[in-house]
Structure formats: C-alpha cells, structure tokens
C-alpha cells in the first residue's frame, strides 16, 4: 500500500534545510578549529629514522628488478643480516616503542584532542536533533525498504502502518552525516576532519607502526625473488644509439 503522504512545507523549511545547513556549517567550523588547534609535535628522531629505513627497504623491494643480482643481494644482506642488519629488531626491544608511545603525554593529548573535536559536535547535534525534531515524519527515502528497518529509521513515529520509507529526522541526520562527507572532501580539499571513519582506521594502525613494520619489511625482503628485467640492456642501448646516429 503506497499511500502518498504530503508533507507540510513547514517541515521542509524548518527541519530539512536548517539541519543540512547546520551540518555543513559545523563541518566547516570543525575543519578550521582543528587547523587552529593543531600543535606541532616535535618529531622523535628514533621514530623518523626507523620510518626512513622502512621506506628505503620498501623501495629496494619495489625496484629490485632494475639492479644487478649481486647488487641486490648486497643490499638485502645489509638490511636483513641477523647481527647488525637494519631491520632486525631484537626481541626484547620490540614492544617498547608501542608502550612508550601511548604513555607519552603529548601524543596522548593530541589523540584526545582530535577525538574530542570530532565527537563533541556530533553528540551535540544529535542531541539537538533528538530534542527538537522528534515525533514526526521528516523525509521520504526514494527506494522501498523492508519492515526490518522500521525500528531503526522511524524512531519517534509511533504509527506502525506508515510505510517504512517515511523516516524520522534522526535518520535524516545520519543520512546527512554520511552524504556530506563527499561534499566536504570537495569543498575543503584534503584532510578535513569530518572523515572520521578514515581517522579511526588510521589511529588503530598508528600504535603498531614502528615495531611491527620492521619485522614485516624484513620478511618481505626475504621473500623477494630477484627478477632481472634489463637483461639485454646494453644491446638495446646500442641499437637506440645506432638509430639515432644514423638518422
């Protein structure tokens, strides 16, 4: 049964549009605030060194085909040598950087600030939406949904016969939240603070970076087969030169 509910223009003027505008403005505000509050961390020399070693090892792995076999082996041994290879982390030391990072007050404070600057506006807006805009049908989703979604999407609406496509303003808020991420990435350029799911993924990977990545790079280097892609390079260079000189 597809009864066509016609929504009041007042709903459109006072709910849908203001909510969207408020969310866009809060996103922009959050972007600028996070920019202002960004403290420059003094970089730790040890961590940077390890990061650079990882990058070098990765480059070696990627470009292994372009250097002769002997050169590649020499470099590989330099990195993965058991006694003093750069990537070899003695077992007892492996856990330390991670623990140290989390107890380091500056870093913890930074992560806390980033978290807060993301969570607080969302919580406040959600509470505002709940308080003011509950109890009526706010919007209609353009595609048909099953009955399962009723409890999720129609929170304040107590009628059980209304089509599930008509949703409350809470779901309009969530729809805004997800849909405006794309818009923000367009108008704010890179690294806008609204992309919180990406941030969360980054943060969960942050603590493990130094200690585990060295081991991972070492394993990767051990695995690489040297595939010499420039076997007849001298002949080719000769042919190209001859062609150039003869023309």
């Amino acid at each position: 049964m597809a009864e066509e509910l016609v929504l009041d223009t007042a709903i459109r003027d006072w709910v849908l549009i203001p909510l969207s505008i408020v969310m866009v403005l809060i996103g922009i505000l959050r972007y600028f605030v996070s920019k202002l509050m960004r403290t420059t961390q003094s970089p730790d020399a040890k961590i940077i060194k390890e990061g650079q070693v990882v990058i070098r090892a990765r480059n070696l792995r990627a470009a292994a085909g372009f250097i002769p076999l002997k050169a590649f082996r020499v470099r590989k041994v330099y990195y993965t040598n058991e006694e003093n290879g750069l990537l070899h982390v003695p077992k007892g030391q492996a856990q330390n950087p991670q623990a140290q990072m989390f107890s380091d007050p500056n870093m913890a404070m930074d992560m806390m600030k980033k978290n807060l600057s993301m969570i607080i506006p969302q919580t406040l807006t959600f509470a505002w939406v709940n308080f003011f805009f509950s109890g009526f049908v706010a919007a209609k989703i353009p595609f048909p949904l099953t009955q399962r979604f009723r409890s999720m999407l129609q929170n304040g609406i107590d009628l059980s016969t209304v089509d599930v496509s008509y949703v409350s303003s809470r779901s309009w808020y969530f729809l805004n939240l997800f849909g405006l991420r794309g818009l923000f990435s367009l108008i704010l350029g890179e690294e806008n603070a609204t992309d919180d799911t990406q941030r969360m993924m980054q943060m969960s990977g942050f603590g493990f970076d130094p200690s585990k990545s060295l081991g991972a790079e070492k394993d990767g280097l051990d695995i690489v087969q040297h595939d010499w892609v420039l076997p007849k390079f001298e002949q080719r260079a000769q042919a190209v030169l001859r062609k150039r000189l003869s023309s």
Partner: protein
Amino acid sequence: MASHDESGKKSNENEVPTFNAENLQSNMKVVYYCRTFMSIIGGVIAGICGFTGLMGFVVYVLVMAITSVCLTARAGFSIHSYFDSWNRVLLDGFLGGLLVNVYFVCAVLDVSFCA
C-alpha cells in the same frame, strides 16, 4: 574539471612500465573529485525528475558511465600512460559516490516533495 596536471607517468622503459607514484596518486585524486561531483549532479537531477527506487540507481550507473567515458577521453584514450590499470579509472569511487548520490536524491526529492 580534470585539471591540467594529468601529465604522462611512464618512465623511459619501453618494456616494463613504471609509474611515478606521486603523479599516479594525484591522478587518482582528480578521478575521485570528478566522480563525487558528478554523483552530486546526478543525484540532484534524479531528484528533480522524480526517479525513485531502481530507476534512480539506473540513473546513477548511467552518470558514472558517462563520467568514465569523459575521463577516458580526457586522458586521450591511452589509459596506460596515466593510470596503472583500467579498473582504476572505471570503478574507483563508485561506492563512495553512491552514498553521496543517494543523499542528494533524497534531499532534492524531499525538499521538492513538500511544495
């Protein structure tokens, strides 16, 4: 929309194509921005025309196909000197754009619904 720094990425190797990672990444960014923008436009159009349900999805796929064709044409039809595989230019950003598209369809439909 596609900016002018989609410059060629191949190095001088004729047998093994290697790519400059930075340029490749910037090309991917351009593709992503284009797709997001087109999904917004497509969503607004679908909302204005009143397409709902499956029709709206079909319109989205159509808009994405048009975007892919235009990007391919902009790259001069030699994809391999700008991207490392066809999949990247055709399919990347499809799902992310879908969400944005759905959002704008809903927004426009509901705003025009009440009038």
